[in-house]
């Protein structure tokens, strides 16, 4: 007698198992309407027919997430502890390098935190469980990044100025309203615009231009903690980039009526993001003692080649065109960092980082990186600044600059093809005049004047008496700046301490 072999029962595949653990937890409400539970996904005009089409390629479970992340953090914090114990700051290329990290601490963790809060918004209000769970993981990641960045830089704060009051500065100080207004613009939009603004434009389109200069700059300049943080965040970032790409494709595939809305957002957020990272351009070319690559090279590689040449070719299939005003950005690649750093240089007496005239070695590097444009800036501005220094002074602009209503950077950018004529655009809305640094910012304003008329412009606020008083010392006190936080690097407490630590001068008291 033979016993028939029992047919093996097919257990769940990995994909089915994942779906059972995640998507299958969802149900459609019947005691209330779906619109009542998810009230935020209709007002932007994006049409979604099938939320289940939102795919999450990582198939993470809570258990897997906790396991990977715990291991990564164990390694990161071990490096931070070792660095602090061994006084690792002594091995930096130069104390001047810290200025890049000051800008980083003042301008980045707070907005990682913003991103954490608004991915929570998406994790709550997206109608589909796949989108919600991906957003939930990203919300946790962004909180991780905010905290690990603060912890990474915490040791430096004990030894350098320009870091100790970053949270207040980020809400008050003039140049920090550039990232603040950028993120708050995104946070006050709806969930789909947020996904294009942050998930796609920021995390995908521009992420290499934003993070690589800081993280590679750290690696080149002996900043082990920041470099380690960068590596540690990398696998999170690749998840975020995937989510960003998934989001734009999802919107475009759901309904063709979504295309013009998405294109508009893409145009807006490309320019918004590009103006934001112009601060990085200035940092990259002027603030790193040991440079990784020039802004121009980075822009060509990470943006023109990888994004315009790669990503946008893929998106053509959906009818997406390269962002509006992209030619303007390309036209600026040889002048952007010079213009930004000159703005930072002349107003750093009211900032929480210091600046200095490029020294001979810097100038040689700038000359080979920008053979056409560097000599123009050297001859027009830096030689003059040097003459002031030689006479025992330091050039700071005594006035307050006009700010662009949209990007909030002082008006220091120039007309396309004419690097010596300042660009200024104006729009009138309900009888009030608004000024802009470029066609890109003006276009953004004209699309949503009701939003941008609300901009909290630091210079306007000073003139309106909302920033501690009319004089520079009043404003600096309201900002919470202390001597040593800003102004000229040479002779600053950071500079003097650096010399003392290396046996070249007595330590500052």
């Amino acid at each position, binding site marked *: 007698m033979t016993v028939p072999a029992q047919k093996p029962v097919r257990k769940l595949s990995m994909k089915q198992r994942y779906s059972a653990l995640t998507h299958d937890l969802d149900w459609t409400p019947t005691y209330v309407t779906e619109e009542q539970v998810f009230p935020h996904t209709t007002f932007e005009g994006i049409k979604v027919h099938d939320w289940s089409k939102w795919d999450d390629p990582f198939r993470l479970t809570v258990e897997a997430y*906790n396991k990977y992340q715990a291991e990564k953090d164990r390694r990161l914090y071990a490096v931070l502890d070792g660095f602090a114990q061994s*006084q690792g700051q002594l091995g930096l290329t130069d104390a001047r390098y810290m200025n890049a990290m000051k800008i980083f601490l003042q301008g980045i963790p707070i907005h990682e935190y913003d991103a954490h809060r608004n991915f929570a918004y998406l994790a709550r209000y997206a109608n589909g469980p796949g989108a919600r769970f991906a957003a939930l993981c990203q919300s946790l990641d962004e909180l991780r990044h905010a*905290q690990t960045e603060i912890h990474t830089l915490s040791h430096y704060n004990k030894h350098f100025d320009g870091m100790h009051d970053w949270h207040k500065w980020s809400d008050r100080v003039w140049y920090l309203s550039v990232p603040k207004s950028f993120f708050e613009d995104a946070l006050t939009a709806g969930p789909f615009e947020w996904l294009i603004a942050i998930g796609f434009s920021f995390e995908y389109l521009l992420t290499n231009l934003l993070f690589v200069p800081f993280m590679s700059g750290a690696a080149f300049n002996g900043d082990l903690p920041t470099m380690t943080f960068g590596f540690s965040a990398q696998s999170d970032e690749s998840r975020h980039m995937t989510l960003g790409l998934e989001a734009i494709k999802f919107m475009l595939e759901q309904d063709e009526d979504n295309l013009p809305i998405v294109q508009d957002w893409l145009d807006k957020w490309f320019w918004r993001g590009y103006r934001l990272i112009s601060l990085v351009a200035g940092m990259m070319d002027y603030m790193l003692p040991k440079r990784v690559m020039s802004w121009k090279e980075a822009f060509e590689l990470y943006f023109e080649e990888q994004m315009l040449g790669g990503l946008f070719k893929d998106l053509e299939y959906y009818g997406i065109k390269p962002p509006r005003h992209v030619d303007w950005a390309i036209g600026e690649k040889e002048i952007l960092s010079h213009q930004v750093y000159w703005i930072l240089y002349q107003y750093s007496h009211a900032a929480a980082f210091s600046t200095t005239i490029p020294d001979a070695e810097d100038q040689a590097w700038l000359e080979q990186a920008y053979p056409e444009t560097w000599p123009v800036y050297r001859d027009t501005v830096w030689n003059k600044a040097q003459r002031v220094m030689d006479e025992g002074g330091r050039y700071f602009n005594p006035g307050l600059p006009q700010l662009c209503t949209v990007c909030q950077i002082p008006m220091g950018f120039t007309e396309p093809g004419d690097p010596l004529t300042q660009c200024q655009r104006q729009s009138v809305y309900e009888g009030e005049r608004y000024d802009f640094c470029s066609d890109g910012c003006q276009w953004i304003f004209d699309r949503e004047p009701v939003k941008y008329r609300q901009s909290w412009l630091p210079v306007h606020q000073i003139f309106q008496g909302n920033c501690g008083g009319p004089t520079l010392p009043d404003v600096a006190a309201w900002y919470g700046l202390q001597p040593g936080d800003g102004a000229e690097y040479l002779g600053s407490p950071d500079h003097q301490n650096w010399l003392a630590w290396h046996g070249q001068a007595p330590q500052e008291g």
Partner: protein
Amino acid sequence: MQFELRTQVIEPKRKTFTNLVERYGDRPASRYEEGSIDIQPVENLHYRPLYSADKEHYDPNWSAFKLADPYSFTDPRQYYYAPYVQSRAATNEAFVKTIDYVESRALFTKMPAGWDALVGEVLVPLRHWEAGTELVFIEGARWAWGTTIDQCCTYAAFDRIGNAQNLSRIGIVYGDGHDHALATAKDTWLSGPALQGLRRLIEELLAGDDWAKKVVAVDLTDRLLYPLMYGHVDEAALTGGAGAYSLVAQHFSSWFADHRRWVDQLIKVWLADETYAESNKAAFQDVLDERWTQIVEAVTDLAAAVDARVRCGAADVVAANAKELAADLAAAGLTVPGGN
């Protein structure tokens, strides 16, 4: 004897960030403090949200529960991201060991009569309760005023979806590696009479306003549901020979003890706030007036479903626990409808 390692000693200029010195004095700060206190932007917000005409994107007015200083609340567990994920990695690992053991010995097939139905028709469907509560906590993470509260809500949300996944794993093992038990559990959640009270409650909460009122309502429900399902029924399983139930239940009761530490602390701080104690109490009373009867009925229905499968006095336990909870609330000056 130790060897003497020489390092260059550099006296730090400052011990921590200025806001922490102003708040706690000139002392070194913990990583919890540096990563949690005063992180959320609070002033000079630029634009009104497109979806809200009357509130900012960070605004204490997203809830009736308020604190004069949001950082008067701190997490008693001092969780920032790293210790949080490390703690959860450890508890997840313990759960996986348990469920693997239960699976390898086919323990769900070796339970006495009634327990089989209890796991499939009462326990596993609660994965949807957990998934619903995740949305309540992540809503808190978006609208809470202040990082310490937001942070606890975020971790609670992740915990809840983790609980939902663990209950689903129980369902898969219970279904011998298939998902039919999960499908049945979902049907039960959608139409089984014993679970409609809970489902209606969570759906109505999600459709309403005020994240903190929702957190309170969920917490009141949990305070009846967890001691029932993962306390009393666990005891009954041990004495009744349903070891598999007890093995998995322990993970939920220990999670709940950890979770309640911060919720309890938050409620305490709300009700003792120097400025808002009275209005917070009124908000809490609103929740009780609106939801208490519904909550008790919902968990009582669940208990009846337990008793119908394994007679263990579940309904009596809920009644007794509700009475005890009402007495605790009365001690805080709150009254439940129908009297404490």
